[in-house]
């Protein structure tokens, strides 16, 4: 039941007395009569109509409960003419207009516009403007209202000439509109009116929007997914029922969901529900109705309340989706400790349903707190979604050594479905150069006096080779004296997987020892030698000595310690003499007076010779290969290279690297940092 304008007529100008208007038809029960009149003197009367003022002077809306009216009487001021418009509707929703009618006064010699009112395509819009004056008010209706059903022009009463226009139309636009009019009166008129009235009609709902599964999408139906639909009212009333149809693509007919029996059947079923205007609802089909591997068409229709009319809309154009299982992924590498690279490869194995292939992957690497999906830890790397069928990808950057990571992988298959996240954990144990001691000192240029900041990076690299320092690939230059043997051994290790096993081979009451080759050092410079030692039951409690032997003078600097069954680091600070000494080597020896026994053994690891001031052990093998990058930030967020501070070589002597920054803003704080690069 849709609102219909059954009749419309203008009210002729009269010269006084109440105006009796023949309708030219007989009203039906439920009809709505609208009267818009200029110079009215009260509510109209006639038939079984109950009248209500719209709030817009001169506009009345009447509900005819019994029908049978053939005329109405419009009271007018005695002796005054009147003019207006009468319309008879069927199917209007209520006596009250949609939204309040709006009425505004029009200032002299000016125009005015009503506020916007929302209305739908099923509504009727009525505007009225009336002025006392000499020129028509120039009624302007909202764009899209269409041709006015009726309009009036000037008429005269005892006070002079009135000009009035009334417009009404169906099929109003769905966007808010307004009404405007202009006045040429030089003085304000108490009865200069401008009004806009919206009357609501009923209409069947539009086909619902089929929200999800999206058309042409792929969906895993193994868990009985819900279908989501959007109700699309055309008359502002709620949905009270729906029909839902499904078929496999190519089938001749649909099956319809019966919510009462929770089954599909061959005839259309209207299932009761309640969905607000513009609301959505979901339909979950009986388990087993859908199966992966099929292509489905589905559709639905809405039924609206519509003032009790229960209007049923048409079915929506079918939407199609492919039921397909998502891929699965197993991440196979990296695992354990990775020692060879800071950019390890992530490997995975994907499994796909029949007919599907991998179309993309995403790799995310996190450290810190882990979960089974990314987001809980600190992200170190993200590949983004990469369109590729590859089953391996390198972590291009962002990882640092001595850190445990979890690498997450998610695959995308043809159709766009993604796997759950697979993951693997690994730890990077890659040798890197030592971090330098870094200082930033504001000062003035000693020559020009210009403000500057001196950036100094004191390298702390281990002078020893990698193998001499940690024995991961052998014993290096370490050799044993006559009473000892030395061998690479994996029983214990402080760094990596190996240490140097030093073992006494006899009971000869002379020193046993192990030593490495001489390393060239800078005359006059200070250093610290380090060695980590671990004993077992055979050696615990015995005295040992770490000796630094200075080449050239054979001077020694020693540190004696008692072996224990826990790793201990023995440090020997020393200074190379300015003349006569060119280098040094490390030697570890036992005490021949302490009843040496064959088989007494200990492990040696993390050896090194460092520039004085070094605070921690670092892997060897980097001296002569390193450089420093200095960066600055003025906001703590964005970092930029310091001029002349990129890849500044570090001398093999490990001399401090100094770069001057002249470009910081006077009076402001600038932040600096640096890193060492090898290779």
């Amino acid at each position, binding site marked *: 039941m849709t609102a219909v304008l059954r009749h419309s007529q203008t009210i002729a100008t009269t010269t006084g007395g109440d105006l009796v208007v023949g309708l030219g038809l007989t009203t039906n029960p439920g009809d709505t009569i609208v009267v818009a009149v200029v110079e009215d003197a009260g509510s109209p009367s006639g038939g079984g109509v109950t009248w209500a003022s719209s709030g817009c002077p001169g506009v009345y809306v009447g509900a005819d409960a019994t029908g049978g009216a053939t005329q109405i009487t419009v009271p007018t001021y005695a002796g005054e003419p009147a003019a207006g418009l009468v319309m008879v509707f069927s199917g209007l929703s209520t006596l009250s207009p949609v939204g309040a009618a709006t009425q505004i006064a029009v200032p002299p010699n000016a125009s005015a516009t009503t506020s916007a009112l929302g209305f739908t395509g099923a509504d009727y819009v009525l505007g009225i403007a009336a002025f006392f004056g000499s020129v028509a008010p120039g009624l302007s209706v909202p764009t899209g209202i269409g041709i006015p059903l009726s309009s009036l022009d000037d008429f005269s009463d005892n006070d002079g000439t009135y000009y009035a226009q009334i417009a009404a139309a169906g099929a109003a636009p769905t966007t808010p509109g307004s009404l405007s009019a202009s006045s040429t009166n030089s003085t304000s008129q108490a009865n200069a009116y401008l009004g806009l009235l919206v009357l609501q009609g009923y209409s069947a709902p539009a086909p619902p929007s089929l929200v999800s599964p999206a058309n042409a999408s792929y969906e895993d139906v193994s868990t009985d997914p819900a279908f989501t639909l959007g109700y699309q009212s055309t008359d502002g009333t709620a949905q009270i029922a729906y029909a839902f149809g499904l078929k496999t693509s190519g089938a001749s007919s649909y099956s319809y969901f019966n919510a009462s029996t929770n089954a599909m059947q061959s005839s259309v079923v209207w299932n009761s529900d309640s969905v607000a205007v513009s609301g959505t609802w979901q339909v979950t089909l009986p388990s087993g109705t859908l199966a992966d591997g099929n292509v489905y068409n589905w559709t639905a229709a809405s039924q609206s309340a519509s003032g009790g009319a229960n209007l049923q809309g048409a079915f929506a154009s079918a939407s199609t989706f492919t039921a397909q299982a998502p891929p699965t992924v197993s991440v196979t590498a990296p695992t354990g400790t990775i020692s060879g690279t*800071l950019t390890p490869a992530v490997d995975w194995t994907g499994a796909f349903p029949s007919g599907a292939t991998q179309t993309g992957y995403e790799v995310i690497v996190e450290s810190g707190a882990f979960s089974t999906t990314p987001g809980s830890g600190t992200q170190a790397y993200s590949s983004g979604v990469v369109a590729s069928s590859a089953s391996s990808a390198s972590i291009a950057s962002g990882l*640092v*050594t001595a850190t445990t990571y979890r690498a997450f992988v998610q695959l995308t298959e043809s159709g766009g479905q993604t796997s759950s996240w697979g993951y693997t954990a690994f730890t990077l144990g*890659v*040798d*890197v*150069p*030592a*971090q*330098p001691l*870094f*200082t*930033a*000192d*504001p000062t*003035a*240029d000693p*020559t*020009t*006096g*210009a*403000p*500057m*900041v001196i950036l100094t990076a004191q390298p702390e690299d281990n002078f020893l080779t990698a193998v001499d320092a940690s024995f991961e690939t052998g014993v290096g230059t370490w050799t044993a004296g006559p009473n000892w043997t030395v061998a690479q051994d994996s029983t214990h290790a402080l760094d990596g997987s190996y240490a140097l096993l030093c073992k006494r081979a006899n009971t000869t009451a002379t020193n046993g020892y192990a030593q490495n080759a001489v390393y060239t050092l800078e005359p006059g410079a200070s250093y610290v030698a380090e060695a980590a030692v671990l004993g077992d039951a055979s050696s615990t409690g015995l005295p040992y000595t770490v000796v630094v032997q200075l080449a050239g003078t054979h001077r020694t600097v020693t540190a004696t310690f008692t072996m224990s069954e826990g790793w201990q680091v023995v440090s020997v600070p020393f200074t190379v003499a300015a003349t006569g000494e060119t280098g040094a080597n490390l030697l570890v020896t036992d005490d021949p007076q302490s009843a040496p026994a064959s088989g007494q053994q200990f492990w040696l690891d993390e050896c090194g010779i460092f520039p004085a001031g070094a605070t921690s052990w670092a892997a060897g093998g*980097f001296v002569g290969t390193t450089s420093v990058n200095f*960066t600055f*930030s003025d906001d*703590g967020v964005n970092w930029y290279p310091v*001029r002349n501070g990129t890849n500044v070589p570090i001398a093999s002597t490990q001399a401090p690297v100094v770069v*001057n920054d*002249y*470009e*910081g*803003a*006077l*009076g*402001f*704080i*600038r*932040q*600096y*940092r*640096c*890193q*060492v*690069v*090898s*290779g």
Partner: protein
Amino acid sequence: MTVTSFTAALEAQWPTSLRWWLKDPVNPAANMEVSMQPGLFKVSSTDPQQIVFPIGSPQAIIMRDTIKMPVLSLPMRFLTDSEFQAFEQLRATGHILLLQAPKEIGQWYIVLGDTKQDQINLATVRGWSTEGLLVRDITISAQSTVAP
């Protein structure tokens, strides 16, 4: 290639100075203090325009650039000839220079009139000897290359 992580960030408080400095980032040895007359120092943004009168047309064509980086008007005073010569040598390099002003004013990377020698306002150049002291006042415009 292996890389260490960055060291912890260190904060350095740059000196607060009432002086102006003209610095050559490429050659810090040429950095020099300049005596600026703050009351005459100006920073402005311009939209340079050119008016062309085509032959045979009554209509003029006005070509206008978009807004560029600030243009600085630098009123400097040199108390000694060596100061002025040092400035001239710095300007002659054509380098992008860093003009550092006291904190409240700011700093700019600038290009002095290397190709626009006439930006030196000769009308305002005046030298005189006062008890043997040669004073040079010049005003030179500079195009900022980076927003302050």
